[in-house]
């Protein structure tokens, strides 16, 4: 009699047993980090604004030496990478794992293209003796030295963020492949996306300040 008794209904979700997930907390933490990044870059934008108001003509002249075409191409590259990033998140939510990995790999590729463009842009400047502390720079007016100092400092810090973003995405790609990011647990990918879009937002402001200031 007792053998034929129906067992109690087992919990339907066994795979998540004992796993604690705080979706809202994880996202809030990422946003708090983004606020600190806003303050970091905000301070640099203030420095730019002040020095520009002190040396308006020299900033105008130095900005004309930057490669506008390369700046605009990199903007389009980064905007497109933001699109592929967000599509990767939509895909995993729709349980399309391969598509999600494809979009994420595309985002990494575009991030790398951005860095390669930046490398050639900086190399061209170095070739012309334009780098902080060079003899050529020290002979130029203070306003132009400040412009290029801010240019290398701010695009360099931004480039560091792009590099970190690409490394983060490579980790997320492995997580996707190993099903550690799933349609019902994708906060890691979502937070990586938030970081990547922040990098995009910062570049949106860098473009007019440096490349379009002429």
């Amino acid at each position, binding site marked *: 009699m007792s053998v034929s008794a129906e067992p109690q209904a087992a919990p339907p979700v066994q795979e998540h047993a004992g796993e604690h997930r705080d979706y809202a907390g994880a996202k809030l933490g990422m946003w708090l980090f983004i606020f600190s990044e806003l303050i970091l870059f905000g301070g640099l934008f203030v420095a730019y604004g002040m020095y520009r*108001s002190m040396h308006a003509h020299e900033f105008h002249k130095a900005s004309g030496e930057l490669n506008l075409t390369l700046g605009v191409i990199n903007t389009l590259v980064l*905007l497109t990478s933001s699109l592929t990033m967000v599509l990767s998140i939509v895909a995993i*939510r729709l349980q399309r794992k391969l598509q999600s990995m494809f979009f994420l790999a595309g985002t990494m590729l575009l991030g790398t293209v951005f860095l390669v463009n930046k490398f050639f842009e900086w190399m061209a400047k170095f070739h012309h003796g334009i780098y902080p502390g060079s003899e050529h720079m020290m002979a130029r007016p203070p306003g132009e030295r400040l412009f290029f100092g801010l240019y290398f400092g701010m695009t360099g810090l931004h480039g560091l963020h792009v590099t970190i973003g690409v490394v983060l995405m490579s980790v997320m790609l492995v997580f996707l492949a190993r099903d550690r990011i799933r349609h019902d647990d994708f906060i890691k990918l979502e937070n990586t996306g938030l970081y990547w879009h922040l990098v995009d937002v910062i570049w*949106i402001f860098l473009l007019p300040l440096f490349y379009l200031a002429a």
Partner: protein
Amino acid sequence: MSHITQQKAEAPHIVGYATFVKVWIALVLLTGLLVGLSVTHRPNLALLGLLVITPTKASLVLFYFMHLKYESAALKYMVTAAIAALIIFIGLTFSDFLFR
């Protein structure tokens, strides 16, 4: 189990691919307009681009790509407060710098 159910209840509907592609097209067009205005060599138009088009682009990324449009009111207030604080810092610094 209960926290998983709660998570699912809190999760908003999935926004489709099309919405984000439209936002991307808008961002590309706005970039074109921004660059177009700056090469006209009219400082007023270039300033308009910097003060209007650039924040519009940033807002599109913030609201759609960063999903803020679909987040809770609490998170929206937090982001608003953070950006307002940044604008106040920048405003105060400049008011001191320009009128001293």
